[in-house]
């Protein structure tokens, strides 16, 4: 390269406040091969970019250095500008004089100015040996995997299928529906959960683009964005679903009962059960922990009564391999277990239940047929205490975060209680009432006024059984008084936590999770539905506590992100990847072991190692590990990096001699 242009950005005062940009511009103008040097207040702005366009045209530049912020900010911007003038985008390099110079040397203008010059000089050294590279094109599998069949997964699946893409929806329970299936009416408009979920479930069932895989789990994920190879494990149902007509005889006749998870322990279920509740439309599975046949072979009743001969006690698990281009993680939430909360009885007081159990009581399809009854004796309760922020917002002992849904569902539950049992009295202990979405505050105020809910600001210290009542010791911090209540029932709004096994799934996907297990997004504002791992998208409570409205919005956002990914003919990828010099490589295979992306493989025939460019992320691990220096990174070859270091060292020596 003989005609290089250098463009120095002021970044307002971010750079110009510390670096004498005019002096740098004069200095770089004198440097070898530089035919154009200028500075501007915002090089990334339209007029700034125009300077680059003009200089390329007028002076016939064959290389560009922009001295500005970090390449993670605007490298792509300037490469695009250079490309539009007919140059190869990889002859444009960034010299970072903001993060690595002006920001860290504030107050020392002289040395910052000198360092900025050295940074530009070293980048020029690199640029001279840059190759003009072509963007890699990779095949793109336009099929998505959605993990989790709750409202988030269902919404994302439907949106994707509607735009013509195939979807595989994996759900670990026997049927889809998730937590929403357990709810009664939803805030703020009191829509029935079933009226939201029912049509969506029907849509899923009738959409040929969506393949639902219930009772399955994702076992392994390999590959990268555009081409993930996923292994899915279908757990044994012990029922041949092709033969089963879901007639329900087996459920009736099975003699074994255990507490139902779905009904939050309010009732029992049989050892053969369906996920889809009382509708009975779902096909059943056998619970191997409780089924007498599977435990010790002493019972064969379901096999005997099944008119279709569908029971298969010897059914094994099945492993299926699928290739997909993108993955939505919509794994949902659990409630913090009451068994861990000592002050509220460790889950041992029968009339202390959690919010989901109360939902089951309110639900017409629930164990009480929609009647609110005390679990202990079936009596209709009068005084019901609701406690908010149980294990939420309690950094010392439990979860530090706000679970976001409890304020609203508690208000809703108290309102529904009052409507179902008019002479009942709900008491609600709260810290703050957070009603931060459209229509929520109005809902709360309406409920308080119309239903005469009693809100007490304070936490509850202790809950215990006292005779057939549940005694609640709390505090009203507004009147500064101790409150003691004898309640018929207590409902705990326990914290929302990520569903069990989320950390395993995150590890399998190479996605990251925070210390509570919530999956982390690439950037809370810029990339809120993308995982830092490309091709993995997040929806619903697996990413953080949120209500149905937000979950649906987020799920649709993931779908639209995937739609724009799939709308490309092929996947374009940065060519800044590793390559191997076949003359030097000894075939030791160390690079294969160190590669975190499974991008390195031995070429058995040639006895040397090779690079899968589609998988390589250019991290450099293999380059550092290679004992023979046979691996190199395109446009960051050893000769370039050492050249930069030497240039910089010479400059440093010079300034030391000066200073």
């Amino acid at each position: 390269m003989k005609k290089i242009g250098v463009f120095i950005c002021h970044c307002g005062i971010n750079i110009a406040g510390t670096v004498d940009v005019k002096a740098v511009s004069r200095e770089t103008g004198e440097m070898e091969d530089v035919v154009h040097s200028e500075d501007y207040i915002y090089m990334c702005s339209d007029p700034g970019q125009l300077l680059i366009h003009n200089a390329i045209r007028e002076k016939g530049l064959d290389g560009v250095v922009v001295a500005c912020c970090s390449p993670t900010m605007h490298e792509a911007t300037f490469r695009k500008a250079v490309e539009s003038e007919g140059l190869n985008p990889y002859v444009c390099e960034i010299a970072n004089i903001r993060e690595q110079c002006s920001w860290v040397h504030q107050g020392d203008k002289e040395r910052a100015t000198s360092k900025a010059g050295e940074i530009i000089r070293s980048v020029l050294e690199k640029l001279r040996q840059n190759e003009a590279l072509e963007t890699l094109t990779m095949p793109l599998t336009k099929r998505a995997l959605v993990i989790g069949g709750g409202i988030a997964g269902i919404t994302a699946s439907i949106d994707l299928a509607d735009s013509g893409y195939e979807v595989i929806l994996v759900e670990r329970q026997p049927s889809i529906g998730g937590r929403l299936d357990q709810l009664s009416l939803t805030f703020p408009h009191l829509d029935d959960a079933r009226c939201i979920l029912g049509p969506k479930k029907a849509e899923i069932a009738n959409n040929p683009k969506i393949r639902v895989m219930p009772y399955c789990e994702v076992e392994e994920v390999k590959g990268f964005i555009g081409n993930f190879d996923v292994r899915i494990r279908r757990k044994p149902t012990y029922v041949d679903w092709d033969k089963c007509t879901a007639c329900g005889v087996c459920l009736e006749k099975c003699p074994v009962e255990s507490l139902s998870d779905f009904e939050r322990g309010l009732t029992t279920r049989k050892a053969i059960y369906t996920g889809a509740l009382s509708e009975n439309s779902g096909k059943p599975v056998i619970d191997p922990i409780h089924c007498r046949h599977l435990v010790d072979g002493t019972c064969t009743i379901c096999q005997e009564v099944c008119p279709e001969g569908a029971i298969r006690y010897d059914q094994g698990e099945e492993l299926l391999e699928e290739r997909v281009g993108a993955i939505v993680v919509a794994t949902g939430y659990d409630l913090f277990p009451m068994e861990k909360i000592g002050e509220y009885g460790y889950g041992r007081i029968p009339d202390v239940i959690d919010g989901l159990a109360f939902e089951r009581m309110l639900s017409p399809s629930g164990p009480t047929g929609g009647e609110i009854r005390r679990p202990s004796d079936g009596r209709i309760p009068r005084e019901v205490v609701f406690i908010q922020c149980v294990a939420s917002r309690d950094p010392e002992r439990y979860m530090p975060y706000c679970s976001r849904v409890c304020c609203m569902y508690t208000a809703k539950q108290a309102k529904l209680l009052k409507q179902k049992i008019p002479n009942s009295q709900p008491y609600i202990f709260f810290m703050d009432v957070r009603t931060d979405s459209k229509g929520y505050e109005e809902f709360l105020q309406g409920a308080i006024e119309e239903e005469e809910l009693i809100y007490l600001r304070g936490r509850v210290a202790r809950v215990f059984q006292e005779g057939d009542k549940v005694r609640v010791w709390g505090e009203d911090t507004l009147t500064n008084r101790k409150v003691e209540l004898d309640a018929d029932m207590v409902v705990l709004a326990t914290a929302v936590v990520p569903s069990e096994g989320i950390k395993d799934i995150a590890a399998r996907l190479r996605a990251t999770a925070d210390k509570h297990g919530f999956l982390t997004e690439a950037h809370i504002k810029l990339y809120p539905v993308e995982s830092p791992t490309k091709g993995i998208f997040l929806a619903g409570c697996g990413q953080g506590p949120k209500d149905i409205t937000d979950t649906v919005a987020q799920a649709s956002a993931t779908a639209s992100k995937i739609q724009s990914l799939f709308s490309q003919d092929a996947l374009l990828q940065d060519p800044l990847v590793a390559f191997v010099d076949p003359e030097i490589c000894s075939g030791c295979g160390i690079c294969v072991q160190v590669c975190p992306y499974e991008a390195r493989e031995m070429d058995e025939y040639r006895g040397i190692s090779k690079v899968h460019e589609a998988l390589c992320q250019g991290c450099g691990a293999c380059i550092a590990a290679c004992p023979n220096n046979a691996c190199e990174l395109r446009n960051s070859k050893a000769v370039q990096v050492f050249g930069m270091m030497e240039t910089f060292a010479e400059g440093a020596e010079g300034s030391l001699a000066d200073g």
Partner: protein
Amino acid sequence: MEFLYFPGCTLYTKAQNLDEAGRACAKALGFELKELSNWTCCGATFPLAKDNIMALAPPARILARAKEEGSALTTLCSVCFNVIKRTNELIKGDEEKREKINTFIEMDYQGDVQVIHYLEILKREVGFDTIKGALKRDLQEMRVAPFYGCMLLRPSEEMEFDDKEAPTIFEEFLGAINCEPVDFPYKIECCGAFQSVGAPEVATECAYAILNSAIRNGAEAVTTTCPLCQFNIDNMQREIRQKYNGFPGIPIIYFTQLLGLALGLPVEKLEFHRNDVDPRPLLEKRGLL
């Protein structure tokens, strides 16, 4: 087995029944309580003010002396246990305070003595199974409510004694001496002891709520580890009876007295005459005297 023992002031005066029975039971179970030489009052309150180094001097001195005579220090009184153990934790974990305290008491102590409660010796060193095997008198599943109070359990991260919300060690102990432990919701509540001088009516209410709950749950007696709890829920029953007509009263018995009874020690050694509500009619009725 020999354990260095810190009795504390109360056990030399009001709570001689806790102390005497504790020493006698130790002998019967084959371990020795060797009294710490030259001990002082523990201070009876762990200071709430962070800079109150003065209040930490007595327990620190006790610990430093214990270090000269052994590696562990045992107490019977819950309050002493609380004050000494918390001081020990503080000295262990806070270098700055440690230096200040050491300068103040002119001794060098690093927090490396293990502070243990008598109940922990019974559970971990002797073992409840061994106790079961050593029983000489059948307590016939007498229904006893264990009252933990606060001092054994809280603050739990410093005391590390048992689950602060649902402790079980006392129940296990009662089971081992063939009593039926009575579960009652007030077993870990405050007895009001610190108010018994300044605001006795508050303390009376606390004691009443505790005893009432124990009685309603079917207890024939309540047992404690703490002289302050004992005083409050035992002696306060006089006031309770005046205020609440028909309050039946219930004997409060130290756990070491119950243990001594079960181990077949002579009744006069257990000093039941010192308990304010006399437990002897109950024991008589059950044929235990």
